[in-house]
């Protein structure tokens, strides 16, 4: 009815009863942007700024050093092992949890989530206790020429532990929501188990799977605490990119440290872009918490 009121008598601006006054909105937005600038954006800019302090050539040259190259190779190979293993685990876990009713399911889900609430340092400690030279088993492993701690297998195990829930967590809610009807229909039509999975389930969960893989990969490449404990930090052999950053930093090789950090920051940036693209384009096939 507002359009019937003569212009002169019209209030300056009608405000909906379910929004805040404009001034309040403006202040709150400005406050949030200020906090985010100080906490999120400034550090991100600082990484690149510090890396390029002595120019592009200097920064890029630091990446060409043998130790830096070895660290990059190691990080890529650890992620190449950890991500597929956790994807396989995530799919199997989500299948067992969402397609069957069994006793103790809630406990198992809690246990899958356990690594979320354990310090990365404690995660590293777990594998040092199991396979370190302080235990009889660990001493035997070292003697037989297959050390796990202070070697690459330990790094893989620690990273597996840290990223353990990532993919299962994405798949379980999506597969719960999708139910079992489509798979059951395919089964009654005579499809084999693997055919049901490949042609019915997998197309339904592929975006959620990709989402989980993205997050798992970002964490696997960036893990610091757990890997620091098990790696022994042998230069050129068990030093991943994040550990290399720490070494360069402690040796006051600031440009080298921040250049390596820039590479990981770019990885984080790519992860965020792909993740956001998934959220915008395939929201209906992701867990409800990622839909905007």
């Amino acid at each position: 009815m507002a359009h019937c009121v003569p212009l002169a008598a019209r209030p300056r601006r009608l405000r909906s009863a379910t929004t805040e006054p404009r001034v309040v909105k403006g202040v709150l937005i400005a406050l949030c942007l200020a906090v985010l600038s100080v906490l999120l954006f400034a550090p991100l800019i600082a990484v690149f700024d510090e890396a390029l302090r002595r120019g592009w050539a200097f920064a890029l040259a630091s990446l060409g050093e043998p130790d830096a190259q070895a660290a990059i190779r190691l990080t890529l190979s650890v992620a190449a092992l950890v991500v597929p293993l956790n994807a396989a685990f995530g799919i199997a876990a989500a299948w067992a949890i969402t397609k069957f009713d069994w006793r103790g399911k809630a406990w198992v889900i809690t246990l899958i989530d356990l690594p979320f609430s354990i310090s990365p340092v404690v995660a590293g400690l777990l594998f040092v206790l199991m396979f370190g030279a302080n235990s009889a088993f660990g001493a035997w492993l070292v003697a037989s020429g297959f050390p796990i701690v202070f070697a690459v297998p330990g790094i893989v195990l620690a990273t597996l532990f840290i990223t353990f829930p990532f993919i299962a967590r994405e798949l379980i809610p999506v597969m719960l929501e999708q139910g079992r009807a489509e798979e059951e229909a395919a089964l009654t039509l005579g499809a084999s188990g693997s055919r049901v999975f490949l042609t019915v389930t997998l197309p339904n969960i592929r975006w959620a799977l990709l989402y989980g893989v993205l997050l798992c990969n970002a964490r696997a490449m960036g893990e610091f605490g757990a890997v620091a404990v098990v790696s022994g930090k042998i230069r050129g052999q068990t030093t991943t990119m994040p550990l290399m950053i720490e070494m360069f930093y402690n040796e006051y090789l600031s440009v080298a440290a921040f250049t390596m950090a820039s590479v990981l920051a770019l990885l984080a940036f790519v992860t965020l872009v792909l993740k956001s693209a998934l959220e915008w384009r395939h929201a209906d096939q992701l867990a409800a918490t990622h839909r905007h």
Partner: protein
Amino acid sequence: MATRPFILKAPTPMPGWGLSFGILLTMLSIIVLIPMGVLLWRGFVGFGAAEIWAVVNRPRVWAALALSFRAALVAALFNLVFGVLLAWILVRYRFPGKRLIDAAVDLPFALPTAVAGIALTAIYAPNGVFGSVIGQAFGIRVAYTELGIWIALIFVGLPFVVRTVQPVIEEIDRETEEASATLGASRLRTLTHVVLPMLAPAALTGFALALARSVGEYGSVIFIAGNLPNVTEIAPLLIVIRLEEFDYDGAVAIAIAMLAISFTLLLAINLIQIWSRRRMGAV
């Protein structure tokens, strides 16, 4: 017909039970259950509860544990308030660059902790961009003090509350707020008495996640903390120091103390959540 495994509640035509449950149980055992069992066995059987207490009950260990939990609580509380505010703005308000901000909230999940650590140190150190300004204006140091630890933990825990509260705000029916307004409540009163109680359970979940993450955080903290024993030495760092001294029992004792305090806190938060859900009438 083959007998179904005891653990399955009902016969099912669904294929792949053996394979999927086998992979689930094997990997869960190798990666999580057996290592956790070894830690607890080593602590309680190999070392003993009294000895664990003797390790923990020393000033330096006590100070480290207190610092880790105090700083984590401060950071999680900040993130609780700021996270609810940010989630509200991202859902309800329209402003340029909103999608960019929304995507950037997850930066702490994607950025490796060591990168965050050296970046925060670079800007909050006494000669850094913000560190020098804050130093001159207020005469306080941020990096290499407990304040620096707070900043690092706020960074790490930032996305949790936002991401748990955001979907709940999207689900809120505006009619509830309209009803409150027509009954004469001011906007502020509607927000504090109608909207906030609806967000409380999700906000608490986010708070618990942020807290759990912050307590154990290592990578982003050690660069900015200064790591002075009794003052700015966090509990995870003390575990690393014990391991470097080959004092495995000491490391195990501190780890078990951390786990015990974390689980007590998470249990308490869970109970508060159950209580707040019940008060809301089983949502």
